[in-house]
């Protein structure tokens, strides 16, 4: 019982409630009277009406869909490239330095470029978000494959596995923990860059909503959209974590989060 309570983190929940409560109190009593700071109750109301009108929901769906598609693309490309660079010497030699340069380029700077080349469209969002998400996936996959003990490669050779089979059966499972770290990072990058692309380029999704509502000076609806984005981020991360622990519960140290 005590362990379950610990897992719920009562004091943590209490802190959140206190923060929200204090915020509500501060605005209600006029203690904090910023022009554009709504009370949590107003945010909740705006959120409820936004959801019922379908506006908030469809924007969230758009952002979610774009992030997921971009992430899946990044996953395929990033894992493949990471495995290739780690395992195939010619690829490693010819690509490493370029990878190091490209991956440290600030990804947000690519959004205007993407808008220029691809135009204001969902395709642009997906393209730039996939580009952003690919790098942590690639780097972590490469690291994970590098960390596969030589002994396992020897085992694969003893069993005369083809390269493809070796990757599928030995390398990827062994590298899985780090690959999954990269996948989680990539997912959050995809979400972030999607939102940025929506704010600068494509007039769709939660990013566009937030900017629009800010410019229209409707802070309560804007805050509601921001909260939805935050929940989206947490939800995606938690979902991925749950999926991986469901699929491979023994692969990770017990009780390890983050």
């Amino acid at each position, binding site marked *: 019982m005590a362990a379950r309570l610990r897992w719920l*983190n009562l*004091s*943590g*929940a*209490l*802190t*959140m409630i206190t*923060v929200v409560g204090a915020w509500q109190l501060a605005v209600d009593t006029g203690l904090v009277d*910023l*022009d*554009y*700071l709504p009370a949590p109750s107003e945010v909740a109301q705006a959120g409820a009406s936004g959801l019922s009108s379908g506006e908030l929901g469809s924007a969230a769906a758009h952002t979610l869909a774009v992030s997921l598609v971009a992430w899946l693309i990044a996953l395929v490309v990033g894992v493949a490239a990471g495995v290739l660079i780690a395992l195939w010497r010619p690829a490693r*030699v*010819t*690509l*490493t*330095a*370029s*990878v*190091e*340069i*490209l991956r*440290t*380029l*600030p*990804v*947000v*700077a*690519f*959004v*205007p*470029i993407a*808008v*220029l*080349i691809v135009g204001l469209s969902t395709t642009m969002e997906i393209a730039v978000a996939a580009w952003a998400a690919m790098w942590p996936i690639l780097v972590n996959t490469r690291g994970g494959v590098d960390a596969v003990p030589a002994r396992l490669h020897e085992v694969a050779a003893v069993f005369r596995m083809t390269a493809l089979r070796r990757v599928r059966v030995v390398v990827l499972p062994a590298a899985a923990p780090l690959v999954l770290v990269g996948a989680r990072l990539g997912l*959050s990058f995809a*979400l*972030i860059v999607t*939102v*940025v692309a929506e*704010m*600068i380029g494509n007039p769709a999704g*939660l*990013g566009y909503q*937030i*900017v629009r*509502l*800010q410019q229209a*000076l409707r*802070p309560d609806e*804007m*805050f509601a*959209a*921001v909260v939805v*984005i*935050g929940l989206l*981020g*947490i939800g995606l*991360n938690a979902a991925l974590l749950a999926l991986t622990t469901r699929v491979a519960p023994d692969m990770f140290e017990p009780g390890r989060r983050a």
Partner: protein
Amino acid sequence: MSAQRWLASSAGLLPLVGLLGLWELLGTADSPYFPPPSTWWNAVELLNASGVLLPELLETMETFALALAVAIVVGSLLGLAIGALPPLQRATSPLVEFCRTMPSAAIVPVAVLLIGLGRSMAITVVVFAAVWPIVLNTAAAVRSLSPVLHDAARTLGLPAGARVRKVLAPALVPGLLLGVRVATPLCVIVTLLVEMLTGTGGIGSLLVQAQRNFISAQAFGLLVVVGIFGYLVNSSVNLIERRLLRDWPPRATAR
């Protein structure tokens, strides 16, 4: 040996150089989407000549530097508190997680509404986004402080002030620096982001302007400028870290 290694590592640049070279050869100067690399240089030169580039670059650097400094101070204090007091860590952890995972782009309009346009808004947003690695790494460093170290300081009769100054604080430096190393590129990105979203100045604004005016060569050129800026910042931080940690045993995991 090092010449050989240099050659080997620059072999990895071939794809990039090759791509740029191909682009240069095949591209036409007036292509709206893919102007060749030579035009980038011209476009940036133009900006520089008109006296626009340097002040904006300076503004970006200032915002970045100020925000990083604030993030280090705030982050290390918060991290110290959280690391030293486990109940505080448990109480604040959901809040920290929520703030940490909130996409910083979404914070910008909020900050604009509440604080208005300007540098203080920019710094607030950047600090909000980049402080968390410092907080978490400092807290982790505090938690992993060896009790033997503290006991040794006590048994040698060091008064409390000397214990903190000479033993406990230096022991936290590697962990703190790790957090700073992670936070630095984050600061660069979010600074650019704020500038791009609010158009109030800095390289980010220039970049968005180039996009809006459909001057592709300028946009690509500014991308390269941004890349160089990021590279220089990261190199500086690495150099500083190496200098500060030269007395420490080498870290097991580089990178």
